[in-house]
Every structure is written in structure tokens, then in C-alpha cells.
């Protein structure tokens, strides 16, 4: 965690931001594969089923293809933001010039 009086190291700060960006893009790829991968099979197959299959009143494909990923994404976001992301000292504002 950064000390608010710490001097800003622009280069180090930039590289840390870039690293975090890579984590976020990788996270998106993971959830894309899960949600679209599962739903593109189960969700479209559900159109041909005579009876709707449900879990807790939710169509089964929505439950496993959206609600569970939503829960996992919540847990991951809490972990990433509170444990993985680093704080950086903030720049002093320069004089206002339009």
C-alpha cells in the first residue's frame, strides 16, 4: 500500500498499471470462455426441449451460464481489488492552464 507522501515514480507506476491491465484482460477472457462457451451450447439447446429445466426457478442454462459466473466474478473482484491491485501515490495538481 502506498504512503501518501511517497514520491511518484512515473515509470514504475506505469508498469504496475500495465500489469494490472493484463490481469483484467485475462479475467475477461476467462469469463468469456465460461459464459459464452456454456450458454452457446446449453442456452440454444434449451429451445428444443419440451419442458423448461430449472434451478431455483431460473432456467438451468441461465443458472450455470450466468448466475454462478456472476458469483465467482464477485469473489474474484473482491480478491483482486483488495489484495492484488497496488496503491500508487497521486500526483500534485499543476497550475490550471487551459
Amino acid at each position, binding site marked *: 500500500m502506498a504512503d501518501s507522501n511517497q514520491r511518484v515514480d512515473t515509470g514504475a507506476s506505469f508498469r504496475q498499471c500495465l500489469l494490472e491491465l493484463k490481469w483484467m484482460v485475462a479475467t475477461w477472457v476467462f469469463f468469456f470462455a465460461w459464459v459464452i462457451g456454456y450458454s452457446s451450447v446449453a442456452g440454444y439447446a434449451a429451445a428444443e426441449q419440451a419442458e423448461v429445466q430449472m434451478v431455483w426457478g431460473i432456467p438451468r442454462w441461465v443458472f450455470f451460464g450466468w448466475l454462478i459466473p456472476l458469483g465467482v466474478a464477485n469473489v474474484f*473482484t473482491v480478491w483482486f481489488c483488495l489484495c492484488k491491485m497496488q496503491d500508487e501515490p497521486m500526483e500534485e495538481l499543476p497550475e490550471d492552464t487551459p
Partner: protein
Amino acid sequence: MMLAATEATAGNAALVSFCIYTAVVFALAWLASRKRTGKSFMNEYFLGSRNLGMWAFAFTYAATSASGGSFMGFPAKIYTYGWVMALWIAGYIIVPLVAMGLISKRLNQVARKSGSITVPEMMRKRLGSPNVGQVATVLLVFFQFFFLLAQFKAGAKIMTTLLGDVGVFIAAKDAIESVLQPLPWIGGSGVDGGYYLCLGVFAVSVVAYTAWGGFRAVVWTDMMQGAVMLVGVVILLGLALTQVGGLANATREVAKMVPPEDGVLRMKVNAKTKLSQGTWFKLQTDERVKFFRVKKDTEVSPTKGSAGDEVDVICLPQPTDAEVNAIEKQMGQQSVATIPFVYQKESDYKYGAGKQGVYVSAPGPSSAEAQGFLPVIMAMCFFAFWPFAGSGQPSYMARQMAFKDTVTLRRSIVFVMIYFSLIYFPLIIIFTCGRVLLPGWEIDSDRIMPEMAMFLTSNAGAPWLAGLLLAAPFAAVMSSVDSFLLLFSSTITRDVYQQKHPDASEAKLKKVSFAVTIIMGVMALVAMLKPPQFLQDLIVFGSGGLAASFLMPVVLMLYWPRLNPAATMAGMVSGGFTIGAIYLVGLFVHGKFGEFPLLGLHPFIWAVAVSALVSVMVVRFTKPTDPELVEKYFGKVDGRPEIG
């Protein structure tokens, strides 16, 4: 008589709630304007002195994001297409992390280092090119205006339903209709005076408090509005689930439903008869019953021929037992004499006609597309669209410039994640229940949210609650409109006026920013006198255009030291142009404004790909960036500027 009394009570309660809500908003604007005293006008009025804490930053981000689209357009789509909307919105599970996290920290750092107040200003200073700022300003104003338009329509629609049964409102509506009917363009027999009245009141109130209070007022009202939205959704969820008999029951009923048909009823009457929008007709044969619902207010006149007058309707060809019960309850309350009619079918859904299960599966029913509402490839596109288009929105970027430190950012992402989960999942449940409780709203699906609020609260014996529930979508709309107006105001004042008049006094800058807010509000009001049917199409075009123009140039500007002014401008223009061109092709092919999936892909994907490709290509063939700017924003590696 009982129903009329209940509706009047609900209407009066809604009016009282609305007045209280508006009073609080104006009180916050007044407090914000007092807080501004003694501070730098530009920094305080447009960025709240860059001092937003966790609650303020998180709520203002969430409330700006949850717009009229979330509370009007999205419910309309859930109602129209069913559970497939969970897949359509699935990208939201990662929106807070990606849309807020991808660029926030870096954007805030670059904005502080350059002392920028607006996105075009930051781009101009980071790249050392006034031309970049000018191109960014033009694209921002153009696409953001479409986004703003949709919010004006949503605001007016909510107010129309909210005040529909209030005596004063009805009298004013009739008076406006009598004035407007003879006029060209907006006149005619179907003119809705209530809509115009509400559009005017909405525009005046939101423009006034935004201009008065500035960024801080917008943030404070966003906090209140964000809380109102959450409370409203939770109450609606409880009422909907109770009245529908549980979620499993609602899903089972929805699974049995088939999409409606479009058609006309030919009616023969002896005297002129007014039919209100939403009036039901029933046709009972030996085999089955069919219901028809009037699409818009219509006057039927006696005709000499044998065909009779035509009334546009939707037809429910195979209503379920739940739909029959709900419709017959509504028919018991309508006061229309029996009129003989003949039904003529005009069109059917291209996907899902007569097919059960389409509302609980993908791709969902579609009246326009034979492959259904959401083919797999479009589901993929939307999964990319929501988080990355969110990153590319200048209205969010303005907020990302304003948080005070990175602790605030980290905690806010967690808060927004939980907040969105508590908003979007319940909305899908609520409006799935809506299909069962209020059938036939395909005639004007954008009204389903306010109609549900009125229906659920009246049924629960608490019509006064309608005011609170309707405050939720109204809050969502207001919180977006105020942010967009401020974005216009800051961009035009800072990037256009102040560039030409760098020595302008604070008093002059204040006047210019107020004037811009008012002018943009008036322009949006005039444009929405003839609104399009689906709000969501305007929102997706506006947000898609902004993301197409800004996402890649801003991401590259923040993370790629080699990016130069020529490549940035080329990236912005090519992205914006691509999305505009694809929508135009769609307009020619389909004859209506809406997403056109070129080769099955969402226009946003094409536009972002073109923008990225053009930016990278132009960098290869143009002058490198000024090394001093690279060192200023990227630091040094081994004593030399970082070159990426």
C-alpha cells in the same frame, strides 16, 4: 369506481413523491453551489476539486451507468425477449472490474499530471496536439448527444405514467393536445399531450439543477439516486415474486407463451368511437380464444363500405391460462361497448412464431430476424461490448479523473460490482414476472417499468408506494442526463471556448457553461418531440459510437508511449466513422435505425477493430511522439524514455 379511486390515489401519491424528490434534488444543487464558493470554478464545477471519496465515486459511477436504458430499455427488452436477456447482459458480470479498472488508475494519473479537466483536454496535452483535442470534442459531442436523447424520452415516459391519473395533469394534457393537433410534424389525431408536457418539465428541471450545482451537485444527486434505485428494485422484486406466485411459477408460465402477431381489426361502428391504447378485444371460437390489444389511441368512424375502419392491434394467438386470467381482469375494468370486428393478420415473428419455450431459451423470439434475437455470435459481441464500451465512455472517464486516491478506486470497484449484481439480476426476474402479470405490453414495451410499478403497488394495497418505485427509473434517467449535460458543458467551455479565450474570467466561463447546458437541453428536447420506438437502440448507438471513437485511442494513449497525434486522430475518426457507416447500411437494408450485424458481428466490434488497426498502422508511417512528452507520462527506463 373502486379502481378509478385507487388509480387516482396512486397518481396523487406519485405526484407528491415526485415533488418531494425534485425538491431534494434542488436542495442538493443549492448546497453544492454554496460549497463552490472560494474555489477554482473550472476544477470545482467540472470535477468537484478531484476529491471524491469511495461512496461518492462509487455511487456516481454506478448511477451514471444505470441510465434510462437500465430501467426503461432493458426492462422493455426482458419483457419482449425473455430469459435470453441474461445472456445479452452477461458481460456485466465483469463490467466493474474491466470498465473501471482497465484505465481508471492510469487515466487519473495522466489527468493529474497534465492538469486536465476534460477527456479531449487530456488527449491534447498528453499528445501535445490541439488538433487531437478538437477531433475528440467533435466526436464526443456528436455521439453523446444520441445517448442524451434516449434519456430525455425515458424521463418523459416515466413522468407520463407517474402522473397519468392526476386531475391537473389530465386537464393540461388535453389543453396541449388541442393546441398541437392542427400542427404539422408533431400534430395529428394520435398526438400525446402528456408526453410533451412531461418532456418539457423533465428538461427544465434537470437542466436547471445541473447548471446550478455543477459536478458536485451531480455527484450528490447521483448518491441519492443510486440509493433510490437500489431500494426501488428490491421492493419491486419482492412485490413481483409475491404476486406471481414465485419465480418457478413465472418461468413455467413464460415457457408456455408464444410471441404475438401484428394485425388489424376491421370495425364497423354507428358513431365515432374512441379506442384508447391498450384496449382489449376477445375472439372466442370453439377451439380456442384469441385476444387483441389496440396499439395506440385510435378513433373509429362509421364507414360507407363493407370493410369497416382499421385499428392496429397485436394478437395473442395462443394465450396461456395465466394470460387469459390477467387479460380478463383488465377487460373487466375497461369501459368499451361491444363492437363487431374481423381480424386480419399482417405479420408474424420471424423467429419463434407459434413456438413455446422461446422466452426461456436462446436466441429468443424476434419479429425482425429469422435467426432469433441473439445468435451466438451476437452474444459474444455483447460480452465484449458492455465491459469495453464502458471503458470507452467519456462520461465515466470524467468520473475516473475525479477520485482522490487509489484506495478509493479499489474499494469503489468492489462496491459497484455488488451494486450491479443487486440491480441487474433482480430486473431480469421482475420483468419475467411482468410477462405473466401484465400481458400485451408489446404495444409499448418501453412503458413496462412504470406500468409494473403502478400495477404491483395497487395490487398490494399500497398505491402510495408507486411514487417511490417510479422514482427509481426517474433517478436513473436524471443521474445520466445530468452527467451528460455536464460533460457537454465542460468540453465545450474548456476545449472550445477557453482555447479561443484563454484569459476569460471565471464569471465569463460560468456564463458560457450555463449557456451550453441550457442549449444542449433545448436541442435534446426538440429532437425528442418525435421519439423512436426503442430507447435501447439509441443508447447502444450512442455508447457504441463513443466507445468506438475513444476506447482504443485512449487505451493506447495511456499505455503505448509510441502513440502519436496522427494515429490518435485516425483511430478516433475511423472508429466513429465505421460505426456510423454500419448503422447507415442497416437503415437502408432494414428501413429502420438499429444495430446492423455486418457478417453477424455487432458494429462496435468492427469499429474498435478498425480503430485499433488504423492507429497502429498510422504510427508506423508517421513522425514519432515528442520524447519529452513520453518521459513526462511514462517515465524513464535505464535513464531513457520508455518507448513501449
